[in-house]
C-alpha cells in the first residue's frame, strides 16, 4: 500500500487530488450500477448527506483546533429523542424543535465546560459523553421509536424546491456561511492559531478557553440540528439514530485534507471529502454491499487518508 500511496501527488494541490478521487468514484460506480448516475439517485444522495455534512462543519473546526469530538452521534440521538418526547407531551412542534436544539447545545456546553475550562482530554470526555448520552436516550424513551409528527415538520427533510432537496440547500448555505467565517473573521484566525500553537495564542491575550468552549457548543448545536433533520427525513426519532456517524464525519473531514494534529484544513476540503463519502456509500448501497462491509471500507479509507498525509508531511 505504501508504494501506491506515496505515488499519489498529495503534496501538490490537495483539492485537485480530492476532486480526482471523487471523479474516479463517480465514474467507477456509474459503470458498476446503471442507477447510479440518475437524477433521482443524485437527489437522493444530496438528501442523505445532510446529517453527516452538518456535523462535519464544527468537526472540521474542532479538528483544526487540535481536538476531537466523538460524542456527536449520541448528541444527535439525544436531541432527536428530546424533541420527540417534547412533542409527545403535547408541545407545539416548533417549540419541540427548539427544545431539541437546546438539548444539543447543553450537551455541547458540558463538553466545552469540561474540555475548555478544566482542560480535560477531549477524546476521553467525549467518549464518556458518547456512552452516557446513549444510555440516557434509552432511559428517556425506553428504546421505542417516536413518530407521528405533523406534515409541516416533514418539510425540512422530505420536500424539494426546484427539484433540489430543501435540506441540501440548507446544508450548502451553512457550508458557505461557515466557510466565510473560517476565512474572513478573527474567530477563524484564533481557531487555526490554537491548532498550531495554543501557548502563543494565550500569550497574545486571547481567551483559548472561550474559543474552545464556543467550538464544542457549536458541535452540540449542529449535532442537534442534524438530529432534527434526520427525524424529519425518516419521520421517526429512534434511540439508535446516529450510531457510528462519527466514523463518517471524521473520515470526511480527514479525507478533506484537515490535518489530524490540527492547525491545517479547510471547509471546502471537508465538503469534497463529504461528497466522496456519501457517493461511496451510495454506490456501495446500490451494489448491495452490507453496511458493516461499508464500515470496513470507510475504516480503510480513513487509515489511508491519514497515513498518506503523514507520509507526505515528513
Amino acid at each position, binding site marked *: 500500500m505504501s508504494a501506491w500511496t506515496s505515488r499519489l501527488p498529495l503534496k501538490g494541490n490537495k483539492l485537485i487530488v480530492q476532486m480526482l478521487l471523487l471523479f474516479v468514484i463517480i465514474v467507477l460506480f456509474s459503470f458498476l450500477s446503471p442507477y447510479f448516475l440518475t437524477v433521482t439517485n443524485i437527489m437522493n444522495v444530496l438528501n442523505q448527506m445532510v446529517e453527516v455534512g452538518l456535523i462535519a462543519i464544527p468537526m472540521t473546526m474542532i479538528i483544526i483546533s487540535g481536538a*476531537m469530538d466523538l460524542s456527536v452521534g449520541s448528541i444527535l440521538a439525544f436531541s432527536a429523542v428530546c424533541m420527540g418526547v417534547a412533542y409527545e407531551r403535547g408541545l407545539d412542534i416548533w417549540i419541540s424543535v427548539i427544545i431539541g436544539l437546546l438539548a444539543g447545545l447543553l450537551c455541547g456546553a458540558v463538553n466545552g465546560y*469540561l474540555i475548555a475550562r*478544566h*482542560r*480535560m*482530554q477531549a*477524546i*476521553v*470526555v467525549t*467518549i*464518556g*459523553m*458518547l*456512552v*452516557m*448520552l*446513549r*444510555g*440516557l436516550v*434509552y*432511559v428517556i424513551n*425506553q*428504546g421505542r421509536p417516536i413518530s407521528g409528527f405533523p406534515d409541516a415538520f416533514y418539510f425540512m427533510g422530505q420536500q424539494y424546491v426546484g427539484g433540489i432537496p430543501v435540506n441540501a440547500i440548507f446544508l450548502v448555505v451553512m457550508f458557505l456561511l461557515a466557510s466565510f467565517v473560517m476565512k474572513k473573521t478573527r474567530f477563524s484566525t484564533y481557531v487555526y492559531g490554537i491548532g498550531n500553537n*495554543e*501557548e502563543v495564542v494565550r500569550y497574545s491575550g486571547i481567551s483559548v478557553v472561550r474559543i474552545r468552549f464556543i467550538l464544542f457548543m457549536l458541535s452540540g448545536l449542529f449535532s442537534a440540528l442534524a438530529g432534527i433533520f434526520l427525524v424529519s427525513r425518516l419521520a421517526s426519532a429512534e434511540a439508535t439514530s446516529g450510531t*457510528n456517524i462519527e*466514523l463518517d464525519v*471524521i473520515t470526511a473531514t*480527514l479525507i478533506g485534507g484537515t490535518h*489530524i*494534529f490540527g492547525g491545517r484544513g479547510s471547509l471546502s476540503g471537508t465538503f469534497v471529502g463529504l461528497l466522496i463519502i456519501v457517493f461511496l456509500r451510495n454506490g456501495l448501497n446500490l451494489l448491495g454491499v*452490507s453496511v*458493516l*462491509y*461499508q*464500515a*470496513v471500507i*470507510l*475504516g*480503510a479509507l*480513513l*487509515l489511508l487518508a*491519514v*497515513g498518506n498525509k*503523514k*507520509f507526505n508531511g515528513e
Partner: protein
Amino acid sequence: MKRLLNVHEAPIILFTILVTLLFSILSPDFMQVENIRLILDQNITMFIVAIGMTMVILLGGMDLSVGSVLAVTATSVGLFLSHGIHPWIAAAMGICIGVLCGMVNGYFIAVRKIPDIIVTLATMYIFRGIAVGISGGTWMTNFPEGFRFFGQGNLLGISFPLFIAVILIAIFIYVMKFTRVGRRVYSIGGNGPAAKLAGISVVRTKFKVYVLTGLLVGIASVIFAAKVGSVQASTAGSGLAFEVMAAVLIGGGSIFGGVGTIAGTMLGVLFMGIVKNGLIISKVSPFWVDAATGFLIILAIVINTLQRIRQNKGKEGDLV
C-alpha cells in the same frame, strides 16, 4: 503496602468501599458470597483486557478496537469449532488471530506513526465488519463440551477463567514492575523524547505493547465465548473498549501516559463491576447501566485531571 496506599490506589479503594456499603444498604442480596463470586466471574473478560489497555494507556495511547478484536477472535474460534477442530487447537488459533489484530494496530501506530485514536477507530470498524463477514451474521452456538471448560470449568477449587486471570495479572504486575520491557513502557509514557534519547526503541516497544494487547484480548475472547456459550459478531464486545478505558482511568491511570498500575486497574474493573451489578440488583432500570458507565468515564477523567493538578501544584507555569 504503605506506598501502595499512599499514592494511586487510595482514592479507588475508598470509592469501592463506599459503593459497596451503599449497595449493601440498598439491597440485602448484594453482600452475599454468591454475588461477589458472580461479580468476579462476570468481569473476567474485562480483567484480562484491562491489563492490555493499562499498558496502552501507560504509553499515552488508546485502543478503541479491543471490542472488535474480541468479536473477530470469538467468531473465528466458533468457526474453527464448528469445523470440528479440537478445542485446544481452536483456542490457540483464536489467540493467534488476536495477536494478528494487535500486529495490525501496532504496525500502523508504531511503524507508520498514525495517531492511535485514528488507527483504532478505523480498525474498530474494520475488525467488526470482518467478524460479521466471517460469521455470516448468524449466532455462533453449540460449542462442544470440551470447549466449555475454558469458561465454566473448575481448577483447584476456583473457576478456570478466574485462575487464568489471576495468573495473567500476577505475570503482568511482575513484568511491569521488575522487567526492562515494563519499565520501558513507563519511561516512554512519562517522557517519550527522553526515552528515545536514552536509547529505547520507541517503535519496537509500542509495537510489542499492541501485540501483547492483542494476545490478551485473544485469551479473553476464548474465555468469553466459552462462558457465554453463544457469540453474535455484531454485538459481542461492543462498548468493551470504553468500559475498560474507564476502568483504567478510575484505577488511577493517567490518560497522558506514564502513570498507573495494573493493580489499580484491576480495582477499577472491580469497581465498575460492582456498580453495574449493584444497579441491577437494586432493581434500577437496565437502561440506566449505560448512562452510569458513561458517567463513570467522565468521573474518571475528572479525578484524573484533579490528580494531575495536585501533582503539578508545586511546579512553575500552567498545565496545558
